[in-house]
């Protein structure tokens, strides 16, 4: 029998306050695409970081081709033949593609490397420009750099961490072709994902993690997406409930021809964005991260100042030049993408964080003095209503898990009884239970006559939750269309569209 390429036995990793990996076994055969499935926080990233030598296991054994080894650092992992494509890319923005590749390889002549780089890139159909700076590149291009720099080391095992989270469906298909080619050459792939359909389509074996433990091993094609989800989450998952869309002509948010320059160094400018959200309606904006979502959100909250042109109306009042708190006074609330550092302050208590955006609207301030006891009561209300697990109202925001913190933030906004809620990436990195709770709350709010704008890169979420769908790409927004009349493929094409005109043309085709 051929020994397994990689075998993990009883791997354990403990972080302060949590057991990230507990007694995990995993075996990868040569020439196999092995899925590592699990929810956010199940311990997938921790496990692969140990395989790649970024983290060190507290206990357990790693066998490479049948021999017990210790992987001290990424360099020794690479020397063994292990390559890794990180979810949050390990790239250097102010350096060129070529430099980024060179940094991950042993010292060598850059001119020779350029030739090799171009050869390998062509061989696997991965288009790259050696001299372009990374900050200029799309997410898909950045991922290609990571993949090519692994391939240049002729890896026996390639680890990919949630690779399709930054790709359009069409780009994902291209990636899968590349991966199949690699396996055909006898390489193995460890494929980390929580997307069940793609695991079923691609992977020969799957190891499922839940709460830091290995709960099952299976052959994905023999399972259904539903059965895989149940193994992954540990219980039956309810799909997002359909709801009746109450017809309303009452406009809650009207954005017309909005253009705003990004104030981030390598940001994306918003160009001529137009849409309307009515009462009782959820408008979803799909798109790959980095296509202007952050800038659109900032333009809507008003936190980066007034736009260069165009207008924003909230509740039929011109809010174009309004400061964030004044917009909130009109009845709008916002949940930005960054939980820690933008929506909440990590080193402040939940009470203080409740006050952060609710102070004015909830009347917690009189004559400049804060009524902390009222804020305290409000915080208690948030924790109860939204089932936020925390050690108390005075717990620091940083002590909450991602899902709980997001429930707290969404709760803080929804309990302000808004007429309009704007949410960016509502369930990104959140476990399934919390995600379902957040979806339910948004739907409940809208059922009572509010309007919601949901910006998300998760297409399942967009299609499950929204009545109208628009796509943002390079700062342009496609015309919103009813969810029932648009397909995933069409949205995917719009996500990859390079400009407004061609985007609409594709959608109409």
């Amino acid at each position, binding site marked *: 029998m051929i020994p397994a390429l990689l075998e993990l036995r009883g791997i354990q990793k403990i972080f*302060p*306050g949590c057991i990230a990996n507990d007694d995990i076994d995993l075996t990868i055969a040569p020439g196999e695409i092995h899925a590592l499935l699990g929810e956010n926080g199940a311990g997938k990233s921790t496990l692969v970081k140990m395989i790649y030598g970024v983290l*060190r296991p*507290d*206990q357990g054994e790693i066998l490479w081709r049948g021999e017990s080894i210790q992987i001290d650092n990424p360099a020794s992992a690479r020397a063994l033949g292990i390559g890794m494509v990180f979810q949050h890319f390990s790239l250097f923005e102010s350096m060129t593609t070529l430099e980024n590749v060179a940094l991950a390889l042993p010292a060598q002549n850059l001119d020779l490397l350029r030739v090799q780089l171009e050869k390998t890139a062509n061989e696997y159909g991965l288009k790259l420009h050696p001299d372009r700076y990374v900050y200029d590149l799309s997410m898909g291009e950045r991922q290609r750099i990571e993949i090519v720099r692994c391939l240049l080391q002729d890896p026996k095992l390639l680890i990919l961490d949630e690779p399709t989270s930054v790709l359009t469906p069409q780009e994902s298909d291209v990636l899968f072709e590349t991966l199949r080619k690699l396996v055909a050459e006898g390489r193995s792939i460890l494929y980390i994902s929580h997307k069940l359909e793609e695991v079923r389509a691609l992977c020969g074996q799957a190891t499922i993690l839940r709460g830091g433990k290995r709960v099952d091993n299976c052959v994905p094609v023999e399972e259904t997406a539903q059965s895989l989800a149940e193994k992954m989450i540990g219980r039956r998952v309810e799909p997002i409930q359909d709801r009746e869309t109450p017809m309303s002509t009452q406009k809650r948010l009207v954005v017309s021809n909005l253009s705003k320059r990004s104030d981030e160094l390598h940001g994306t400018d918003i160009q001529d964005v137009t849409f309307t959200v009515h009462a009782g309606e959820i408008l979803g904006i799909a798109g790959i991260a980095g296509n202007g979502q952050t800038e659109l959100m900032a333009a809507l*909250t*008003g*936190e*980066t100042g007034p736009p260069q042109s165009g207008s924003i109306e909230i509740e039929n009042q011109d809010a174009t030049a309004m*400061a*964030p*708190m004044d917009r*909130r006074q009109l009845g709008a609330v*916002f949940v*930005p993408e*960054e939980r820690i*550092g*933008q*929506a*909440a*302050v*990590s*080193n*402040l208590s939940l009470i*203080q964080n409740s*006050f*952060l*955006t609710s*102070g004015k609207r909830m009347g917690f*301030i009189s004559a*400049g*003095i*804060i009524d902390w006891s009222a804020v305290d009561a409000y915080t208690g209300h948030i924790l109860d209503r939204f089932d936020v697990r925390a050690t108390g109202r005075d*717990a*620091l925001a*940083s*002590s909450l898990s991602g899902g709980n913190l997001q429930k707290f933030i969404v709760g803080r906004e929804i309990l302000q009884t808004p007429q309009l809620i704007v949410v960016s990436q509502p369930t990104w990195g959140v476990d399934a239970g919390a995600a379902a709770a957040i979806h339910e709350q948004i739907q409940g709010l809208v059922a009572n006559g509010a309007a919601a704008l949901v910006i998300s890169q998760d297409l399942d979420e967009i299609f499950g939750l929204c009545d109208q769908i628009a796509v943002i790409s390079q700062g342009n927004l496609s015309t919103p269309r009813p969810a029932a009349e648009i397909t995933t493929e069409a949205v995917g094409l719009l996500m990859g569209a390079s400009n407004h005109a061609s985007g609409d043309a594709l959608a109409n085709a």
Partner: protein
Amino acid sequence: MPLEMPLLTLEARATPSASAAWLSPLLALTLTAITGAAIFLVMGKSPGIALYIYFIEPLTSWSGLSEVLVKAGPLILIGVGLSIGFRAGIWNIGAEGQFIAGALLGSAPAIFFYESANPLILPLMMLLGILGGMGWAAIPAVLKTRFNANEILVSLMLVYVAELLLIHLVQGPWRNPQGWGFPGTRMFPDAALLPVLFSGYRIHLGTIIAIVLPLLVWFALAKTQFGFQIKVFGSAPLAARHAGIGEKRMIWVTLMIGGGLAGLAGVIEASSTIGQLVPKISPGYGFTAIIVAFLGRLHPVGALLAGIAIAVTYIGGEGAQISAGLPKAVTGLFQGIILFYLLAFDLLTRYRLTRITISKSAT
């Protein structure tokens, strides 16, 4: 054979330790004293006696205590202002320049109306002192908000400019015509001097202001929306922006508070213990107050206590120079060492040291 390897490692705390936050200044002071003892030993002095002169003797007499409080006054005032700025992440390190600017502008009435007995001259001087400090701090504020220029470097460069301006004025246009050519202005009229509280001691009205002010600031920071905004702006600028806390406003307000208090300290110093303007009006109060702010954990009441503690070493340093022949420069060295220790111990508020054991299979 498994090998047990004990190892010390840092573990992030879920909540910053409150006890460590107050313990680390005390630890820093203690270790500075121990380090000081070693330095004295190297210098051939008896560490016991030297430490006594430095840290204890100023506190053993009423006059010593009075001197400590007088010295602490400017340190506290500036330190409180700087703590607010540092909390907000605005690094105004040019308080020394703002102190001088406040002393200059605030002293102008006393110099131009040197025979005045009008009781309003003193309030006017205080007001001008505050405005002088604010004006000097307005330069980095404008340049940062308008042109994005680094406030650290701008405020610091302005220290040198203020010092040179002071020297020019007291040697030139503002020099005392009856001063036999010594650099320095006329002595202020009595109406322009802050009243002394107890005869025989130098404690004056300004000292009382310096002691009361931190308590007021404490209240303001804890209870008001402004205090909350400072905290949010300093710990998470993006969250502040999201919550509508304007960046430019925070830069302006914190620099005005820091500059205003430094300017007030400057005019108080000129109109109390000195009674005129001289070239060396400050023994580096503006810089020492940076240490006061950190030693006081960027808390106004902390700045009060830290100001007094640092003042002890100033007075002790003067005593040591006279009675033990120890150079005054030792005080400056101590101040740097205190800050080093403090920054090192700060780690303990955010992390905890734990022993972990890694079992390694040795072959």
